[in-house]
């Protein structure tokens, strides 16, 4: 045992730690270059064994601080909601009549699962977080995730008791959106893992302040979930298209609770995912 320790110390000291450095760098490069399936397996193993319990503790600390602020906000919100409830009751009666009138199909008629955010990416690119609901609660991959304010992302990985949520700001998540006023369809993606940008036809007449909602195309997100507002409009390389900076309705780093819509992807997406 003593010899092994001495041997390791000798190796570590060669070239002022150069051997250890090259070994660790080599290991890191292997992980970086690994196949996505292998990467998924590494992440899943790490999350289920060490990181999930640690993150639960960290999340509780964060939660404790947030509770007092949340309490104040809830009191104000409660008063506001009482007024809105009265209006909503009247509106509901009217809506019920209108539904019958136009045979409105309730596309959002899916069960909702409430989940708490228990893990966050500690790095500066917040693209994923972990929620405390999983297969045991009926969650499956590709299910839409949203909050009171609008779309958050989708489930990217599911374990028995927790799941990873891929946020809208993840550069790998791209979705079809619709401008609420003009009903024109566009394409939303993340820029630099931080900001949202949409590509929309030039002649559509979209202006700053217009609201984007999900278009329902693509088979994952149902139509009509609010995404964000147009903050700025830029010219693109293509004359017929415009790039738009989109301001999401929520600050992703401050999300504490989210809702998962138990909507499975349409059959065509399921076929593509196989």
């Amino acid at each position, binding site marked *: 045992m003593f010899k092994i320790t001495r041997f390791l110390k000798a190796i*570590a*000291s060669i070239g*002022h*730690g150069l051997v*250890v*450095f090259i070994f*660790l*760098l080599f*290991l*890191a*490069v*292997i*992980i*970086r*270059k*690994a196949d*996505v399936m292998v*990467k*998924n397996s*590494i*992440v899943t193993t*790490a*999350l289920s064994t060490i*990181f999930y319990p*640690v*993150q639960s503790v*960290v*999340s509780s*600390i*964060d939660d404790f*601080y947030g509770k007092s602020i949340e309490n104040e906000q809830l009191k104000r919100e409660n008063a506001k909601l009482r007024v809105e409830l009265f209006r909503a009751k009247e509106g509901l009666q009217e809506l019920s009549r209108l539904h019958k009138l136009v045979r409105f199909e309730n596309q959002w008629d899916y069960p909702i699962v409430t989940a708490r955010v228990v*893990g*966050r*990416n*500690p*790095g*500066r*690119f917040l*693209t*994923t*977080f*972990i929620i405390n609901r999983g297969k045991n609660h009926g969650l499956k991959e590709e299910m839409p995730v949203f909050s009171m304010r609008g779309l958050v992302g989708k489930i*990217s990985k599911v374990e028995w008791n927790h799941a990873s949520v*891929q946020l809208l700001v*993840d*550069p*790998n998540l791209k979705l079809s959106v619709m401008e609420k006023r003009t009903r024109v369809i566009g394409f939303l993606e993340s820029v*630099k*893992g*931080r900001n949202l940008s949409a590509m929309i036809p030039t002649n559509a007449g979209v202006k700053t302040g217009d609201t984007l909602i999900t278009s329902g195309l693509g088979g994952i997100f149902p139509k009509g979930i609010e995404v964000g507002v147009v903050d700025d409009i830029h010219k693109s390389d293509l004359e017929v298209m415009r790039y738009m900076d989109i301001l999401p309705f929520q600050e992703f*780093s*401050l999300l504490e609770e989210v809702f998962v819509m138990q909507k499975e992807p349409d059959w065509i997406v399921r076929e593509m995912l196989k």
Partner: protein
Amino acid sequence: MIWLWIRFPLLFLVAVVMQTTVSKWIRIFDIGPDFIIIFIVLIALRRGPVVGALWGFFAGFALDVYAPVEWLGAHTISMVVLGFAVGQLEERFLTLNLGMKIGVLGLGFFICDIVYYLAVGFERGIVFNLLLTQTLPESLYTMVCGGVAFKFLFEGNLKNKHV
């Protein structure tokens, strides 16, 4: 003796807790400090390149687990490089004053981010843009927070205690 073994894991846990909680609360214009980098620089300066690179590996991997799976390994590579590079200035061999340590932290932040952006595979234009709009302000903020941490940890309990 036990304290010597658990000191750095405990510091790492504190850094992770601060990164996921405090860092979020003290963000200014969406710019926040990076306590994980402060931790790696602190460890590397105290204990040299081997321990610096090892902790860089563990901390980088911890960050990678929560990053997009396609980018897995990028944080690990950048943090290993950071730990090893800063470890060359180990204070057993060099005497650095507080100002120089903060300077090393800022420089290390830049090195770490450049390696990270390259490892992820961002285009050159985007890398330059990110360095200006994100790395520069965040490194300055981290240097301020790191200065406070170094002041207390280097001149406090950890001073002149080598295992």
